[in-house]
């Protein structure tokens, strides 16, 4: 197991290196640069040249990348062109808000998807199945900014039950933190739930068609018992995989939801970095998001062995 984790970590390092090269190349391929963007319309060639030289952007791209990489290896992601602040600190400052929203959204998604997926599988072809599929279709199709604005309109503006936007740290004021978390978590959670519902349903259906399930049924075991002990245990594995991927996606920051709800997360940081051509900040943010993705994938794989003793990680 230790060796397995080690090998996966090495693979992850290679993947991260690849991601960083791709991001670096892509952002430099796009027209525009941070200095020109910062100067805006008050452009002055002499000043521009001086600032480019000062920020090291006049060096060859390979040298720039090498400098960034050697810094990143020691945990120093450099300094943001936009804010002048260290990027590592800026990302760590935003990570809690993103993590809180991601976990809450996933919980909302699971609260929807588990019952909806299981019931619609068990009652396949019945009205409740169609209702669940309908929900799933709508949930995937509805734009999240629109859904978010709708929730704000109903629950904040009209009913006045919840604040329309903003983030409060749970350490500062847990009650207020939850009040502010509900609407964005539901907005992102409904989409997640819609995606997961389909997977839960199809995994349960597949597990239900297995031979041992048919045998159990033939032996006259109660449906509930079969569902619990023979169907769901086998259905978990694909569901866990997709759930892990969903969590990783959510942790990458749900840009639109963060913008609508004024949520100070990693997604908005990455977006601002793209818009302002803040190269090191974007590279740092993407590196963090990719690392999160790889870590969650590793945890999911390790979880397989727990869920199904037949699978061995080594």
């Amino acid at each position, binding site marked *: 197991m230790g060796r397995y984790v080690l090998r996966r970590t090495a693979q992850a390092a290679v993947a991260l290196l690849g991601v960083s090269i791709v991001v670096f190349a892509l952002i430099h391929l*796009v*027209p*525009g*640069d941070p200095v*020109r*963007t910062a*100067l*805006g*319309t*008050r*452009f*002055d060639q002499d000043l521009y040249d001086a*600032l480019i030289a000062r920020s090291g952007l006049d060096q060859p791209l390979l040298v720039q990348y090498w400098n960034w990489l050697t810094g990143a290896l020691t945990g120093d992601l450099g300094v943001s062109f*936009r*804010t*002048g*602040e260290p990027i590592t*600190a800026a990302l*760590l*400052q*935003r*990570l*809690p808000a993103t*993590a*809180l929203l991601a*976990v809450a959204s996933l919980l909302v998604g699971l609260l929807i998807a588990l019952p909806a997926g299981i019931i619609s599988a068990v009652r396949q072809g019945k009205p409740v199945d169609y209702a669940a599929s309908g929900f799933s279709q709508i949930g995937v199709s509805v734009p999240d900014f629109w859904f978010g*604005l709708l929730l*704000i*309109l109903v629950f*904040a*503006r009209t009913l*006045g039950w919840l*604040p*329309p*936007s*903003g*983030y*409060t*740290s*749970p*350490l*500062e*004021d847990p009650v207020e933190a939850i009040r502010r978390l509900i609407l964005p978590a539901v907005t992102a959670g409904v989409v997640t739930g819609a995606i997961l519902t389909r997977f839960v349903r199809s995994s349960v259906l597949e597990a239900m068609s297995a031979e041992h399930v048919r045998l159990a049924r033939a032996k006259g075991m109660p449906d509930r018992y079969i569902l619990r002990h023979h169907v769901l*245990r086998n259905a*978990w594995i694909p569901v*866990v995989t997709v*759930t892990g991927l969903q969590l990783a996606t959510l942790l990458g920051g749900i840009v639109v939801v963060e*913008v*609508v709800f*004024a949520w*100070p*997360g990693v997604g*908005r940081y990455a977006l601002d970095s793209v*818009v*302002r*051509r803040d190269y090191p900040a974007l590279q740092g943010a993407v590196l963090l998001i990719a690392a999160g993705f790889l870590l969650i994938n590793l*945890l999911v794989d390790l*979880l397989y062995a*727990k*869920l199904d003793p037949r699978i061995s990680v080594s």
Partner: protein
Amino acid sequence: MRWRSPLALLALLALIAAACDGGEAVDVDDPTGEDVTDETVDDDPDPDDDVEEDAATGGTLIAAIGGDPDQLDPHTTTSSFAFTVLENVYDTLVQPGDDLTPEPALAESWETSDDLLTWTFTLRDGVTFHDGSALTADDVVASFERIAEEGQNAFRLDAVDSFAAPDDTTVVMELNRPAPNLLDQVGAFKGMAIVSAAAIEDGTVGDEPNGTGPFSFVSFSPGDNVVLEANPDYWGEGPFLDGIEFQVIPDESVKVTNLETGEVDWIDSVPPQQIDQLEADPDIEMSQVAGNDYWYLSLNNAREPFDDVDVRRAIAFALNIDDITEAANFDAATPNETAIPETSFWFLDYAPYGHDPDQAQALLDDAGVSDLTIDLMVTNEFPETVTAAQVIASQLGEVGIEVDIRIEDFSTWLAEQGDGNFDAFALGWLGNIDPDDFYYAQHHSEGVNNFQGFADDEVDELLDAAREETDEDARKALYDQAATRIVDLASYIYFYNPDILEAWSPEVQGYETRPDVATRFATTSLG
């Protein structure tokens, strides 16, 4: 049961996330910080809560701003959101008064030598920075030297050769040419803020804002909020508030909802399409003031056929700026065929084009231009340029000109503009006060922002002369001539001056929207 493992994993992640929260920048122990949350929750239910001994004091103003103030260093930031905050933290030597003419701020008086090349400023007595240290002439000199070096606003000090501090309260500037607009240049906005010499030396200007303004800096949580508290030693009137919390709310309609629900007391802008809705709301004060910004279309003089003045004029005749204005801004802007708004002393009442497609067609025929397609570059950073472009495309279609609208993100837009890679672009200029701001960089053949490549000897001479003319009426006459020629030669085709739109709760007293968009809360109170 085994199936609970994924949930256990989630719980673990939640714990990790919570543990990471230690780095939060907001100071929880700070009494002002506490007030902030209290104010947000109970806005109106118990009036007794809000009334203290003096009705005009107390309370924390919650102000919503539309974006992150990237950084809080006044000399290096270009973010308008940063200036909304910094307006209340820093002071300048002089500042624009209510009619935008310079009035004393940190300098209580100034005089000029007979040749107008030496300016001597006398500083106000007893001004202290927020850290308690006294303001001296050395701080002023160090600040200007830093501005000249840091670049962003160095152009405003072009006319100044040297700064000196002969004693603690005297600052002397030696100029290389007469500059009648020097006061506007050194005091137009907080990009020219006076910071402490010690902060410059320690390199802490951006991290620990230390100004002389009505409010001092408490905390900055990027993407979330900036907290300020009252400076009891402020040299001017006020402050009456206990503090201000600026909350970043990027989505415009969500920002409005926050005001409607009483979550915030003041918002920094209003989408023009929501003006009517807010004006009808008795619980909201909607403020609409004519501003000094202007929006325009520019044609690439370096490319055929736009090097032909007749073609540029034809396009000006073909456009209907009333329609463009209404589409882009509803009723929240004033169409204007010149740059400077009618509220200004420098306004020139000159509108030679109107909407005349026949004239446009005749000019195009004379120029021998047909089958013209224009690559018009606009940016989604300023959605009103996209709307304007759609109207422009349909209006030019009437005279047989096809318009390819190219929408770019602003970084790309700026790069393309710098490379001269466009037939035409639409944009605006913000934050101008002196006529030199409106014309020189944009229309002088040597102007640094003359991206359209406009060159006219007469305009150059007029702008050079106007720059140094000290008699105000003579100066206005020169600018009138220059502006007339700029409009006639269609260096820019001007559209409109937008209004400044802000809104606040009726509890907010003593605040006024200013045409230069300076957001000064010194004399504001919550009643």
